[in-house]
């Protein structure tokens, strides 16, 4: 399995703060990679740097055979990367339909794909003409994911999709991501919820203080509680 | 002594210190060094505008708010004197009363505007003050029974301040010591004292909080400073100082009208002076106001020469026409904002 995305020695500074201090990790083609870590470890900055929303001050970001560090955000997106930010970035004043129409860069939405999306997220069909601002938190998250995937993309970056969502909705989200995985989309997902991460991830990278402190198979980390505790500070009851 | 006067905020540049001393000496001895009505007018105007621009710098440079209502407060001061002197007669009592009423009005109005709109964005505040100030200017020109309308008010002052009053029998250093000289020194010393007071304000703990808010609103709030209150107080202090400048200007001119105090053109002049002189430095107000007023008076003579010399070349005579001097200052202004936001003072300090 080759790597679709590879970061090597990536540094990012925001104002006076040196957030990413040499980040190295890879996202294998077709796989589901989880980026874990405590609050403030630099996970969000990592995704934003890949998208070109922050400029890397040093290092390479190789995507699909080309170094994309330093490219503008639209250029990065046009290479086939879909992005769901932590804030979801829903256009609240636009309807669900308009949100998705805008995301379909290459023209009208493909109807087969739309029906498939509706199968994954039925709420979107129900509220098709409603301003997205009126959706619930979980429905907004589904719209954000649908928007990033309304056309086939090579890589999907998702920042904490389970944040603030009820367990039933998270379960639904797991199903949706399993379905996405079957479409041969490569996914890099930032997560704090280890259960969610464990149920989906193939490979994992763990960040702390702007560096990658562990990377490998999800199975290896899932089976080693001591390692989990050391890397993520998980107590045993958090596993429940 | 110097340290206390300047609140420990030195010019920090030999060139700047020399320039400031030259300006100070020029203004202090203006009646003797530059005798003549026109040059004394220029000197008094410089004093008034140094105070006015310094008070604006407190807002723009130190607090980071853009107000277009500064001329309104300037005008309230001037009209306070003018209306009191017209209605109540040329007595010291009416001048004091007029000044106090004007200052009270300014304080009230500035607090009101501040509380209503300072919690919102810089742009919003700028737009609101622009609307309110133009309303005020139009109001002043329409309430002609009270304010003299477009013509403004001309009035008498107490005997001591009139040009006909001779204080000394013999001229001093060849200059006749009359009421104008007394008026000039009232303007000079009051402006100087209030400038030093403003310098004290910006160097006080209060002034440091203002600068912290300007740099990072959220962080200042997080540390526990209510930024709205600090900004409102700064707005009020600036308004009071602007009104004081208006009072001095009215005393000097013995006239108050829309064109000398309230017009938007004066607001633009203040912006030019503070930015070209140097925002957030206080001394920038001294340098900016002095250069501007002198340029306003004498640059046009120079440009007339250039314009005549360029006669025959298309458009160029129009561009260096004496009336177009603001064009060049406008360009200098834009370059200042981009290239040297600390203005002339920043440039002089940077050389050291």
């Amino acid at each position, binding site marked *: 399995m080759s790597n679709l995305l590879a970061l090597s020695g990536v540094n990012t500074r925001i104002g006076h703060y040196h957030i990413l201090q040499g980040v190295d990790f890879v996202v294998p083609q077709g796989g589901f990679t989880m980026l874990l870590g405590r609050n403030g470890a630099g996970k969000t900055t990592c995704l934003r740097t890949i998208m070109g*929303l922050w400029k890397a001050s040093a290092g390479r970001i190789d995507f699909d055979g080309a170094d994309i560090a330093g490219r503008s*955000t*639209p250029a990065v997106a046009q290479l086939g990367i879909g992005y769901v930010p932590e804030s979801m970035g829903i256009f609240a004043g*636009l309807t669900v339909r308009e949100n998705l129409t805008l995301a379909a*860069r290459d023209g009208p939405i493909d109807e087969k794909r739309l029906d498939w999306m509706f199968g994954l997220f039925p709420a979107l069909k129900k509220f098709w003409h409603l*301003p997205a601002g009126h959706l619930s938190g979980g429905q907004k998250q589904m719209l954000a994911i649908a928007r990033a995937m309304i056309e086939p993309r090579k890589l999907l970056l998702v920042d904490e999709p389970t944040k603030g969502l009820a367990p039933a909705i998270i379960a639904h989200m797991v199903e949706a991501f399993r379905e996405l995985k079957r479409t041969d989309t490569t996914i890099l997902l930032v997560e704090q919820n280890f259960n969610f991460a464990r149920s989906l991830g193939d490979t994992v990278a763990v960040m702390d203080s702007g560096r990658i402190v562990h990377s490998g198979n999800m199975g290896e980390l899932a089976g080693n509680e001591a390692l989990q505790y050391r890397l993520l500070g998980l107590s045993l009851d958090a596993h429940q | 002594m110097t340290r206390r006067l300047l609140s420990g905020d030195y010019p920090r540049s030999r060139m700047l210190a020399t320039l400031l001393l030259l300006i100070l000496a020029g203004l202090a001895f203006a009646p003797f060094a530059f005798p003549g009505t026109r040059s004394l007018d220029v000197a008094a105007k410089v004093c008034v505008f140094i105070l006015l621009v310094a008070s604006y710098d407190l807002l723009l440079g130190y607090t980071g708010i853009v107000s277009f209502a500064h001329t309104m407060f300037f005008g309230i001061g001037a009209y306070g004197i003018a209306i009191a002197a017209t209605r109540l007669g040329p007595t010291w009592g009416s001048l004091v009363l007029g000044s106090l009423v004007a200052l009270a009005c300014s304080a009230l109005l500035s607090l009101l505007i501040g509380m209503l709109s300072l919690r919102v964005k810089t742009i919003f505040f700028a737009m609101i003050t622009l609307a309110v100030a*133009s309303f005020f200017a139009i109001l002043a020109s329409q309430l002609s029974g009270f304010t003299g309308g477009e013509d403004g008010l001309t009035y008498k002052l107490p005997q001591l301040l009139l040009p006909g009053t001779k204080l000394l029998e013999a001229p001093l250093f060849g200059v006749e010591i009359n009421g104008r000289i007394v008026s000039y020194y009232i303007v000079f010393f009051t402006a100087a004292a209030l400038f030093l007071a403003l310098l004290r304000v910006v160097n006080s703990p209060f002034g440091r909080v203002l600068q912290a808010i300007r740099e990072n609103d959220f962080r200042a709030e997080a540390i526990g400073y209510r930024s709205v209150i600090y900004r409102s107080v700064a707005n009020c202090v600036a308004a009071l100082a602007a009104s004081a400048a208006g009072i001095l200007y009215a005393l000097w001119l013995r006239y108050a009208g829309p064109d000398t105090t309230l017009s938007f053109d004066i607001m633009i002049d203040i912006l030019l002076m503070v930015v070209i002189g140097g925002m957030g430095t206080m001394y920038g107000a001294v340098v900016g106001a002095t250069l501007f007023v002198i340029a306003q008076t004498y640059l046009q003579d120079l440009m007339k020469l250039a314009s005549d010399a360029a006669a025959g070349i298309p458009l160029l005579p129009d561009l260096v026409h004496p009336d177009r001097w603001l064009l060049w200052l*406008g*360009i200098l202004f834009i370059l200042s*904002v981009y290239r040297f936001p600390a203005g002339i003072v920043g440039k002089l300090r940077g050389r050291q």
Partner: protein
Amino acid sequence: MSPEKDELPGAVLDKSPLALIPVIALVALPLIPSLPTWVTLTVAGLAMGMMIFIMASGLTLVFGLMDVMNFAHGAFITIGAFVATSVLLPLAGWTRADSLWMNLAAMLLAVLAAMAVTGAIGLAFERVIIKPVYGQHLKQILITMGGLIVAEQLILAIWGPDMIALPKPVTLRGSFIFGDIVIEKYRVLAVLVGLAVFAAMFLVLNRTRVGLLIRAGVEDSEMVESLGYRIRRVFIGVFAAGSALAGLGGVMWALYQETVTSAMGMHVMILIFIVIIIGGLGSVGGCFIGSLLVGLMANYVGFLAPKIALGSNILLMVLILLWRPQGLYPVAKR
């Protein structure tokens, strides 16, 4: 596509600000001595409001999209008006002809020239003056004020300091008279042009892809870029279009006043700012309602108590801000 169409409205519109327009008109009705006068004033108010809308809409849209308030916008209005004098005065043969079509053709030429000039200047202005200070509000205000100073001086250098008379074309002078009701022809034209601009903006914003991009960009330009669109290009286009609209408004306003002065832009800017604040910074719909409110208010109060006409609009602004501190239609921002 399977979902049922129009099961829900495209956007849930907040209607209470809309009601303000009839409310103001009805409040004025008993205060004004005769019904025909009221009708005349109402039409005059709507016409004035439409012209203000033409001038203000571009400015508010630019603010919504780019977070830039161009304090030099008034200079574009003035430039538009002066360009109109340069076109219309030499075309006196067309404007004095007793033919509506000749008159309108002359006006159309003036409008096109004014829009082309102000649009082009707007483009240059964005590139040279504003681009370096995106995101810095204080510098933006200062730099656009600097642009205003320079622009006003250039206007004076090119067109001279004197007021220029600009008479309306012959067939647009005078009034339509229905019984006691007198309606100036030019005001009808102003209403029609204003409606056309509003309709065009509405269609572009709601029915085209560019409009979708603009509306999304007003909310969250970073996300629009993350979807793969170069929003900067849209910014520049909107800035040029907003400046061109200022030019159009300048022509309309100049013919309405029949005089052109270098101070006219700054004069109207005060009303424009009030309108934008009332409508909610960045909202085109709010700007439309705000313009009509201000136009009506100015005409009713101008008739009843001319001295406090502008004051009444300031009062209106304060009242609306007390009701809705962000204006009638606050623009949702991240």
